[in-house]
């Protein structure tokens, strides 16, 4: 995309909101930015209604900063906590019916490949654990089986946080939640392991306590999806509101999970490894 599209003509420059002007002047569009550069440029995420200390919003912020080319990226989301922040980003965003995100993304990717054959238009699914692991599991798996060239990013807060704390398939066994008073009775759905055997060419499991790893994973996943096939990133984003811890403990909880059930893990084929080494 040419930055001409977002630069206002002189006559209208005064009418635009301050945020837009900053985005044109200091946005991430002209030169590639990464997670390390956060704080030095105007982020494409705007003020959002997430709770204080929300892990999901930290995950969204990190992944938005890590996009290789935000101007050519289309994010597809689904209802849940994740879309509160995403609808206010300065990039193309499409919301879908609950669980349909990977099917919609696959269609959009095919259409964009026909319309812009010489440009890489990245289609990235960003959804919560409910959208990917529970209600949209069939469509997610089928998009991987079909080798669609899209990136799927799960912001896993292990609960339906938006609707008051019901247990999700990704909640841990025994977890007591607002609307699961006896604790969850079956184990966490192994979506990451399913991605390995369902055709994903690159996958990473990471937590928000390692921001640089999140940035690297998202960037690699999108670059690999351009050339090879489906990629998957699973980010642990703890929820202080429903897991009942203080908002300033989010990173501590994520750090502890990193040592326990959310260890950093990456899988990739040899040709993908060779491709990433060349970059």
């Amino acid at each position, binding site marked *: 995309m040419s930055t001409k599209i977002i630069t206002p003509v002189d006559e209208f420059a005064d009418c635009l909101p301050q945020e837009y002007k900053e985005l044109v002047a200091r946005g991430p569009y002209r030169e590639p930015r990464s997670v390390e550069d956060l704080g030095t440029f105007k982020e494409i995420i705007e003020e959002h209604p997430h709770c204080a*200390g929300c892990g999901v919003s930290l995950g969204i912020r990190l992944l938005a900063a890590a996009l290789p080319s935000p101007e050519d990226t289309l994010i597809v989301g689904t209802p849940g906590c994740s879309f509160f922040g995403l609808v206010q980003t300065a990039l193309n965003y499409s919301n879908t019916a609950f669980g349909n995100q990977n099917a919609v993304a696959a269609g959009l990717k095919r259409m964009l490949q026909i319309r812009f054959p010489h440009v890489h238009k990245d289609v990235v699914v960003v959804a919560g654990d409910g959208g990917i692991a529970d209600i949209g599991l069939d469509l997610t798996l089928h998009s991987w089986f079909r080798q669609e060239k899209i990136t799927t990013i799960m912001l896993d807060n292990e609960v339906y946080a938006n609707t008051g704390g019901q247990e999700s398939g990704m909640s841990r066994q025994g977890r007591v939640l607002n609307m699961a008073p006896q604790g969850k009775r079956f184990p966490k759905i192994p979506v990451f392991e399913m991605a390995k055997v369902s055709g994903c060419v690159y996958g990473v499991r990471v937590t928000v306590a390692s921001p640089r790893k999140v940035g690297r994973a998202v960037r690699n996943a999108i670059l690999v999806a351009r050339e090879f096939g489906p990629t998957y990133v699973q980010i642990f984003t703890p929820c202080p509101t429903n897991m009942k811890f203080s*908002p300033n403990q989010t990173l501590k909880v994520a750090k502890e999970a990193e040592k326990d059930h959310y260890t950093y893990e990456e899988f990739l084929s040899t040709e993908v490894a060779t491709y990433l080494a060349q970059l």
Partner: protein
Amino acid sequence: MYAAAKIELEKCIGCKLCILSCPEPNVLLYLPETKQVSVNQQRCKGCGLCVVICPKDALSVSSI
């Protein structure tokens, strides 16, 4: 009453750990001239994640 983070510039060493831990966009800004961090208090929700992660105790959360 609103709570927001406050920074003591004498203690800030510009390690940028707080910027990577903040869930709010465009709140903590890095000033390359002074190699320090500034806080946009109007947008801060006062969660305190930056306070916990700061190795020099330069940040604190208080009412504004």
